[in-house]
C-alpha cells in the first residue's frame, strides 16, 4: 500500500568550492497518516535538512518527497513548519500572527467571522487566549512557541513539521509543552515529523523514531517502532521497562555505534 508521506531515497548535494558536498544520502522514510515520527541524530547530521526538503525549502538532488501520491518540491501550507526559534513576526500581536496565516491560507474560502473564529480556536488549543493581544516580545519563550504551534496548526497542514521545537526552552517549560502537544495530538491526530536531539522527548512523543548516522552523506541508521500505549503519562513511564528499553536503544545508537568522533 502506498504510504501517506513517502520520503523516497532523498539525497542532497550542496555546492562548495571543492565540488558538491553530499549532505544526505538516500534517506528513505515512509510515514502513515496520523503517525508521529521523530528524527534524531547528532547535531550537523542533516536532520534539519531532511525537514527542509519535506517542507520544500530545499530541493532534493536525487529522489523526492511524495505526499498523498503527489510530489511536493516547493513550500506550502499543507506542510506547516514550527521553527526552533518560533519565527513569530515581532510587530504583530499573537492573534495577528495566527490570523496572518489563517488569512493567507483560507482568505478566499472563508468569511471574516470564520477566520476570526478559527484563529481564536487555535489560540485556545494551545491555551494562549489570555495573551492574544500581546506582542511576542512581551511573552515568555514557551508561550512564543505555543503561538508558533498554533500558527502552524491553523494552516490545517497534512503534515506538521517541527524543527527542534522545544530545543531553545528550559527543561520544565519543555515538559509542559510536550504534554500540551500530546493532548493536541490526541485530539487532532496530525501527521507529525519532529526533529529533536532529546532522547526522552523522542521516546515520549513518537510512534516511530528515525535515527540518523553522522554526516557527510548522512543516512538512516535505524528506525525504531515505539509501541507504548497512549495516552502516555510522563510519570508512569519513568519506571516502565518498555519505555526504558526504547530509551536505551536510542542511547546505544547515538553514543555507542554512531558516537561523534570529536565532540
Amino acid at each position, binding site marked *: 500500500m502506498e504510504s501517506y508521506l513517502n520520503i523516497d531515497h532523498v539525497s542532497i548535494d550542496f555546492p562548495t568550492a571543492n565540488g558538491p558536498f553530499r549532505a544526505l544520502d538516500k534517506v528513505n522514510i515512509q510515514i502513515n497518516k496520523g503517525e508521529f515520527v521523530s528524527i534524531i541524530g547528532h547535531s550537523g547530521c542533516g536532520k534539519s535538512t531532511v525537514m527542509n526538503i519535506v*517542507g*520544500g*525549502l530545499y530541493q532534493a538532488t536525487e529522489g523526492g518527497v511524495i505526499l498523498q501520491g503527489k510530489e511536493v518540491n516547493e*513550500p*506550502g*501550507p499543507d*506542510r*506547516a*513548519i514550527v*521553527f526552533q*526559534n518560533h*519565527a513569530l*513576526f*515581532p*510587530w504583530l500581536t499573537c492573534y495577528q500572527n495566527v490570523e*496572518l*496565516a489563517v488569512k*493567507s*491560507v483560507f482568505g478566499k474560502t472563508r468569511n471574516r467571522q470564520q477566520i476570526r473564529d478559527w484563529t481564536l480556536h487555535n489560540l485556545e488549543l494551545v491555551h494562549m487566549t489570555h495573551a492574544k493581544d500581546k*506582542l511576542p*516580545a512581551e511573552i515568555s519563550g514557551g508561550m512564543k512557541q505555543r503561538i508558533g504551534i498554533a500558527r502552524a496548526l491553523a*494552516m490545517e497542514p497534512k503534515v506538521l513539521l517541527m524543527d527542534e521545537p522545544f530545543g531553545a526552552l528550559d527543561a520544565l517549560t519543555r515538559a509542559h509543552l510536550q504534554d500540551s502537544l500530546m493532548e493536541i495530538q490526541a485530539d487532532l491526530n496530525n501527521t507529525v515529523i519532529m526533529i529533536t536531539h532529546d532522547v526522552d522527548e523522542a521516546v515520549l512523543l513518537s510512534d516511530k523514531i528515525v535515527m540518523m548516522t553522522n554526516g557527510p552523506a548522512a543516512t538512516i541508521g535505524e528506525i525504531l517502532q515505539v509501541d507504548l500505549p497512549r495516552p502516555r503519562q510522563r510519570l508512569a513511564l519513568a519506571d516502565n521497562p518498555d519505555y526504558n528499553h526504547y530509551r536505551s536503544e536510542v542511547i546505544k545508537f547515538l553514543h555507542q555505534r554512531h558516537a561523534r568522533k570529536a565532540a
Partner: protein
Amino acid sequence: MKDKAIYFLELTGLNWFVPLAKIASGEPAGFQFQQLTKMIGLPLLAILAFLMFWHLGAAKVDTSLGQLPGPVQVWEQVKVLNAEHQAERQRADEFYQRQAERNAAALAKNPDAEIRVRDYTGRATFVDQIWTSLFTVFVGFLLASLIAIPIGIVSGLSQNLYNAINPLIQIFKPVSPLAWLPIVTMVVSAVYVSADPMFSKSFITSAITVMLCSLWPTLINTAVGVSSIDRDLLNVGKVLRLSYFTTVWKIVIPSSIPMIFTGLRISLGIGWMVLIAAEMLAQNPGLGKFVWDEFQNGSSNSLSRIMVAVLAIGLIGFVLDRIMLTLQKFFSYDKNANIR
C-alpha cells in the same frame, strides 16, 4: 495619563522634560531633580562655556568687515532680521489690501472691468529664505526616498542585483554636490522647458542636487536592513505562499523599518547640508543665497547676519533630525530599542 505624557515626551525626544512631568505627577522630587541637573544642567553649562569662549575669542579677531561678532551682536541681528521680516509682511499685507480695494472700486464702477491680481514682489526676508530652503530640501529628500527605498528593498532581496549595482553606488556616493551642480543645471535648463513653469528652474536644480546626494544612505541602509532579515521569517512567508508583493509589504518592510529610518535620517542630514552649499553656488533662493548675498554685501553687520544663518541652519538641522527620530520610534515595532 501620566504614563501617556511621559511616553509622548520620550517618543518626541523631549527627554529633558520627563523628570518635570514625573515631579508634576507626584513622584519623589529629590531623585528627579538630580536627573534634571544631569540632563539640563550639564548641557546648559557647556553652552555657557561656549558662549564665553566665543565672546572673548571673537573680540580678538579683526577682519576687513570689522571685529568678528560675538554672541551679543549676533543676537542684535536676530532681532533686526525679525523686524525686517515683520515690516516686509506688513508691506505685503498693505499691498494686497490696496489691490483689493482698487479692484473692488473698479468693479463697482464697471462690472465688466478687467481686474488684475498681482503677487507682491518684495524682497525675500530671512524667514522667507528659511521656508524656501525647507521646501526645497523636503522635495529633494522625498524624491530621493521614493527612489532609494524601492531600489534598496529589491536589491536587498536579491544578492545578484545588489552585487550588480553596488559598484555604481560606491562610485556615486562620495561625489560632492558641487560637482553635480553644473551638470544638473545644464540638464534642467535643457530638459525643463515650459512657457509657464510650475516651479522655477533654480528650485528644480537645487531639489535634484539634494536628491542626488541624499539617495545613497537610504539606499544602502535599506538594502542592508532587508538583506539581514531573519531567514525564518521569510520562510514563514514561503510556507504561506505569499506573493512577492505581499512578502515585501507584510514581512520585509516592517522588519527593516529601523534600518530604513536610520538611512533616512542620514539622508535628510546630508540633504540639508548639500542644499545650503548648492544654493550658495547656484544662486538659488534659500538660506545659502542669504549667506552668499550677505558675504557679497560686506557691510559691518554682514558677519553677524551670516552667523545668525549658521545658527539657524544648525537648529533647523537638529529639529529635522528630531522629527525623523520621532517618526522612527513611532513606526518601529521595538519600542524599547535605544535609538539615538
